[in-house]
């Protein structure tokens, strides 16, 4: 009898093990090493415990991630089941049929897809289909040192100021003798580096990348005025060696108290306002990114989002993880375990209305308003055939953006004139767009 029982329980256990292993799956996620993704890695074991699945994290540097995932997805390699991608890649890859559609997320009442800001969903969709769900979204706004502004007798702007007014403010707080530079802006070449800021600056000056016939506009008077302004501002009031400074370097400089102003990603606010990481947490405040000839496209739009490559063999499990990682419960879990100031911003309306977030991070409201002021579908003063504020959502933009970024960096370094930089940029863009068939 005992033996029979033993055999029976052994058999049951074996069956459970077999069925368990049949259900449990291993998924591979490619990601970058940003703070919000690190938090997700720390919390993911909860999903693994609940579902019995296992996650392999592949953490890569951003450019390597982009190249690696593009290569894998375009060759149907199937190395990854989930990828962190941005607002630039999602519509292009979705249109190419490289990503699994997430339209069925709308049917899940508990997930509440409509709680995710419409603007963000639009940015992660192509031809009416949703291809990625956001972990966080950002625009750009102005970080400034309230103590230095007060000392210089400058009141916090209540309305969007112009870049001319901004330069005037910067001149008053520029104090290199005491190690504080008037402004720190991105100078490192790259479509995702200096061109993110320069792109919005150009929009503010009324410039556009292409006209309605896809003719490049880089030699226009608007681009000329914008780049002259940028080079003058940075030469007079920027830190030395600004062409080496990207987002990370400026963030470090600002947190160390070396910059009086900085126009950059709203997603850095949590870090800058965290006294454990920043010397200027208590004396940093924000206002909208300046305008000039127009207020359109003056703050950029970006989102880091999770997508499933069409080549994945584990789409259902991947979708289950996506729902968990972008659910209301996930954001609440981040707040409860890591502190509400660490909750990723710009994703869900209900989270932005949560009193716990508003208490811990009063600037969350400013971020939300800044994100809502952006419209990637209408980014410029004059009409354009593209979407995207600081980028143009076409595959050719990476190459063009990088080239223009290098010319702008060369102009900033004094290696060439602004006119020569823009003329070379225009020639390159015309060549690339002709080659790609946009210009006949």
């Amino acid at each position: 009898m005992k033996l029979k029982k033993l055999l029976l329980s052994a058999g049951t256990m074996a069956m459970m093990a077999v069925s368990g292993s049949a259900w449990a799956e291993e998924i591979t996620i490619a990601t970058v090493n940003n703070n919000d993704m690190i938090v997700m890695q720390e919390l993911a074991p909860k999903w693994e415990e609940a579902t019995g699945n296992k996650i392999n994290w592949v953490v890569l540097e951003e450019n390597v991630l982009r190249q690696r995932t593009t290569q894998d997805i375009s060759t149907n390699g199937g190395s990854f089941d989930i990828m962190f991608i941005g607002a630039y890649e999602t519509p292009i890859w979705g249109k190419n049929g490289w990503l699994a559609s997430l339209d069925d997320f709308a049917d899940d009442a508990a997930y509440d897809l409509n709680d995710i800001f419409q603007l963000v969903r639009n940015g992660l969709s192509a031809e009416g289909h949703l291809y990625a769900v956001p972990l966080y979204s950002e625009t750009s706004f102005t970080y400034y040192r309230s103590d230095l502004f007060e000392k210089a007798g400058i009141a916090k702007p209540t309305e969007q100021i112009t870049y001319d007014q901004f330069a005037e403010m910067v001149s008053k707080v520029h104090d290199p003798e005491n190690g504080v530079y008037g402004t720190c802006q991105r100078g490192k070449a790259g479509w995702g580096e200096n061109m993110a800021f320069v792109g919005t600056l150009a929009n503010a000056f009324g410039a556009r990348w292409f006209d309605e016939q896809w003719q490049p506009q880089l030699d226009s008077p608007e681009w000329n005025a914008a780049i002259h302004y940028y080079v003058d501002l940075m030469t007079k009031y920027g830190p030395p060696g600004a062409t080496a400074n990207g987002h990370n370097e400026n963030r470090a400089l600002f947190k160390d108290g070396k910059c009086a102003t900085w126009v950059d990603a709203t997603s850095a606010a949590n870090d800058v306002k965290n006294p454990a990481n920043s010397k200027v947490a208590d004396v940093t405040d924000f206002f909208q990114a300046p305008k000039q000839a127009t207020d359109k496209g003056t703050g950029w739009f970006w989102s880091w989002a999770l997508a499933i490559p069409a080549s994945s063999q584990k789409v259902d499990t991947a979708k289950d993880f996506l729902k968990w990682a972008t659910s209301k419960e996930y954001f609440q879990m981040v707040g409860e375990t890591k502190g509400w100031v660490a909750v990723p911003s710009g994703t869900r309306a209900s989270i932005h209305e949560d009193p716990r977030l508003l208490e811990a991070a009063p600037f969350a409201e400013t971020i939300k308003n800044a994100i809502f002021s952006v419209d990637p579908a209408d980014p410029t003063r004059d009409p354009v055939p593209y979407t995207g504020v600081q980028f143009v959502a076409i595959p050719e933009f990476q190459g063009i953006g990088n080239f223009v970024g290098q010319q702008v960096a060369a102009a900033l370094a004094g290696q060439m004139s602004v006119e020569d930089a823009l003329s070379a940029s225009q020639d390159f863009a015309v060549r690339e767009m002709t080659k790609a068939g946009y210009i006949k």
Partner: protein
Amino acid sequence: MARAVSNKTKTINTVIAGTLGVLMFFPILWIIILSFKTEEDAVRAPLEVLFQSGWTTDNFSTVQARSDYFRHFSNSVIISLGSTLLGLVVAIPAAWSMAFVPARRTKDVLMWMLSTKMMPPVGVLVPIYLIFRDTGLLDSRVGLTVVLMLINLPIIIWMLYTYFREIPGEILEAARMDGAGLKEEILYVLTPMAVPGIASTILLNIILAWNEAFWTLNLTAANAAPLTAFIASYSSPEGLFYAKLSAASIMAIAPILIMGWFSQKQLVRGLTFGAVK
């Protein structure tokens, strides 16, 4: 007879050599210093050697907690040792035939093999990626071992060829006269005589395979990723993690540095083998 060198020249030479040594070692020293700083100290501008917030070993524990160092380490060991040994199996017979039974085109063949190293690897990335995809070798240690063996093979053959050329052919002839077959000749006569050369070839190729980053980053994901992928994961587009990146770098290069340190005598002996006849 050795040429007489004045004390003054000796001093100048020592100072120049010392300065060059310090300059070459400085980046590694800087990484070591950064790895013991807090992130805030590590990015402080201008960079300071002093530790305002004190020394810390937190970076090492954080890196180990966040990424599985030992998995990456074992992948590095398997891939670098495997590719080197596999390379030797192919390269010893190849170098033997070219050194002792040269044909009219042997020199051209050698040059052709070396020329494959002149091509940028990205040029063959997509075809190799597709082959790996179709044969199920993506993200596998076997696949990576084969690729690293192939890319280092020209160097292994060239090095062994140079060493084998220094061995008098008459010794091999004598072995043949004593009845040694081809296998015995290579295994029991040639190989023992070329041990210093083979050892330095092994060491150099382990170092090359250990540090190889292009193929190891492009052909792996989670399972076969070696230490190069481990380092790369600490570079971030939003937030500087210099201290953790430095700690990860130290953890990745330490094994190969220690190996190089202990085997430097062998390495130098092998590299200079046959330089003076």
